[in-house]
């Protein structure tokens, strides 16, 4: 049985079903009560489950996570909301030094079944600190599961799995897709570490997650017009990363493009391409490519469309892996590498 929901409503449905199914589940965050969150994701939940289970917290991210740790000791399953990606950093210590390590430090005696929801990503035309992709910081930390969702169905099922998990999970919600709709079947169960092949093809593999999955699928359709078959993998899990699925695909296609909104340096694409190089080197027919945010802070949103992976940038990368004419043809010719001038040294 399925219903048509926006991604935001699918998250709401997962939270609602989790609250209903287990009275040890509770929600905590800024403005999640009466307001229903700044994106209305928790709309109606406080009215339905009461202010004891849907808690409007004081304005302190470190305390949201730190107190959730204490609640976890008593067996609560806290779903904490961080209002926007850029506001997670005050909680960084509690997440990285505490949440991630308690199982290890207690030699398995203490579980942290905490879920941290983070609306993330760009393309919403907002101001500073509202469009970031901080997932790599957390992927680098052992003990945390870091997952994303690309569709309402994925959002529903993955969030249910996150809340049910005895590991701490960071659930990154692509806020730019909150209002996109899709079919949701609440009986579909998903895990927290298997990638999904969402389009099959023989020529090039594109690995994406969160908001870039849709762009990758559009690239597959556009490439098909030129007779190029693109396989698209929705990684879903960023950490631990499902390298097996990507390796299996690359063994067939020989070509890999990885895309995400986060900057390239020390990112999911760095890790994935290194892993593929280790495990599928003989099968690679071209250097892996990536299409990501540039290695700058998230720029003013007036230029975010230049910063973010786009359909054209993806197609250009596909062309590079196939040795077709592309935007960088001739770029490594020294004359093309004349020093840039505009603005750089101002």
């Amino acid at each position, binding site marked *: 049985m399925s219903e048509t929901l926006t991604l935001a409503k699918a998250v709401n449905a997962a939270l609602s079903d989790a609250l209903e199914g287990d009275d040890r589940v509770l929600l905590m965050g800024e403005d999640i009560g*009466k*307001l*229903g969150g700044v994106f209305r994701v928790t709309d109606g939940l406080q009215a339905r489950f009461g202010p004891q289970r849907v808690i409007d917290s004081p304005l302190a991210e470190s305390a949201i996570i730190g107190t959730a740790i204490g609640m976890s000791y008593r067996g609560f399953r806290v779903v904490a909301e961080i209002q926007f990606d850029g506001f997670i*950093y*005050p909680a960084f210590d509690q997440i990285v030094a505490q949440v991630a390590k308690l199982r290890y430090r207690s030699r398995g005696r203490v579980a942290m079944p905490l879920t941290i929801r983070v609306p993330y990503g760009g393309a919403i035309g907002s*101001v500073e600190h509202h469009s970031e992709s901080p997932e790599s910081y957390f992927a680098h930390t052992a003990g945390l599961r870091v997952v994303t969702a690309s569709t309402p169905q994925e959002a529903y099922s993955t969030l249910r799995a996150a809340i049910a998990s005895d590991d701490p999970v960071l659930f990154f919600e692509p806020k730019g897709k909150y209002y996109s709709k899709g079919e949701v079947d609440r009986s579909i169960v998903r895990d927290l570490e298997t990638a999904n092949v969402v389009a099959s093809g023989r020529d090039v593999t594109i690995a994406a997650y969160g908001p870039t999955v849709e762009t990758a699928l559009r690239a597959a359709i556009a490439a098909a017009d030129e007779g190029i078959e693109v396989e698209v993998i929705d990684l879903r899990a960023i950490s631990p990363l499902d390298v097996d699925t990507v390796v299996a695909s690359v063994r067939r296609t020989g070509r890999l493009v990885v895309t995400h909104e986060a900057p390239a340096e020390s990112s999911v694409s760095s890790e994935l391409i290194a892993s593929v190089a280790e495990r599928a080197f003989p099968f690679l027919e071209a250097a892996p490519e990536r299409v990501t945010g*540039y290695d700058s802070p998230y720029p003013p949103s007036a*230029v975010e469309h230049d910063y973010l992976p786009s359909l054209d940038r993806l197609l250009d990368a596909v062309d590079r892996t196939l040795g077709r004419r592309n935007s960088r043809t001739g770029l490594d010719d020294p004359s093309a590498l004349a020093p*840039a001038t505009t*603005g750089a040294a101002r």
Partner: protein
Amino acid sequence: MSIIVPAPHPELAVGLDSPLTVLDLDGTRIANELLDPHLTDIDESALTTLYVDMVRVRRLDTEAFALTRQGHLVLWPPLLGQEAAQVGPARALAPQDWVFGSYREHGFALLRGADMAEFARIWKAFAHGGWDPHEIRMAPSQIIIGAQTLHGTGYAMAAKMDGADEVALTTFGDGATSEGDVNEALVWASAFQAPVVFLCQNNQYAISEPVAVQSGVPLALRPTGFGIPSLRVDGNDVLAMHAAARIAFDRARSGGGPTFIEAVTYRRGPHTTTDDPKRYRDEAEMEAWIAKDPIDRVERALTRMGANMEAVRAEAKIRADQLAKEFRAAAEHAEPPTADAIFDHVYAQPTKRLERQRLEHRAFLASIEGDR
């Protein structure tokens, strides 16, 4: 720099029972032992200046709000109702002092002399920063709640080390008082007796959360636990705010360390242009605050002083309209940034890696020219 433990103060918080006020709603002066000595030079002309400032700030705010609705700005956090809480302290600053504020400090930005064209660019999301912080002595606006309070404290510590006659004013909201950063700033300011003034604009809400979510006691009581004296002031009374700020700045300047001022006020607009306050507050509670309007009160006071209100109003309107026009022109005609803005100013010197990315992006743009 050694750590100084502040001597306990017998009466660290003033105004807990009712916020300090010197202007009654009808514009009559209420005698106040503490504040009056700091207002002796405020004559009709000085009060007129404060009035015109508030009218200009409000005009800037309403123009920007309208510009956002019309799609010329991406977002605007209105300060409607908080004009006195900003103008009073802003007019008590010395030119050499610094301001470290949040994102709602349009009054401070205007009175510090921020370039309106640059200011508009921030809210068009054309740039992250506007004015030159060193030129107008005001740090870039701060969206990360409370972070600026540490910066203000550190600036004040540095000014003290240098023996400079400078004070840092850091301003933030009621919600911000819950953040660790703000509490740590209070610890440091007290420990180092830094010449910093904490201005908490308690506008009763942090987005949807009423101040009761943050605190069961008046916010002005909090700093006393850190050994910091505090003043709870009617934030809609520009004279009381001005006097309180003068007290705090004088104390800081004379080596007396930090002061906390809670400006009790009200955010009459939505949190930002994307907010819908009907979901969380009864708009009827606004009535009481409209009755305490900071501008109306000064109009009445000026009338009582015998000012020619018609002329004052006309003069204020001309200046406010001029400002609104300037801001509108900037918002409507600002030159958008190019993609190069992504790569500029990331490091002191351009790096090879980023310059490579800049070139790749230019090459990419060239390759799709015409297709777009």
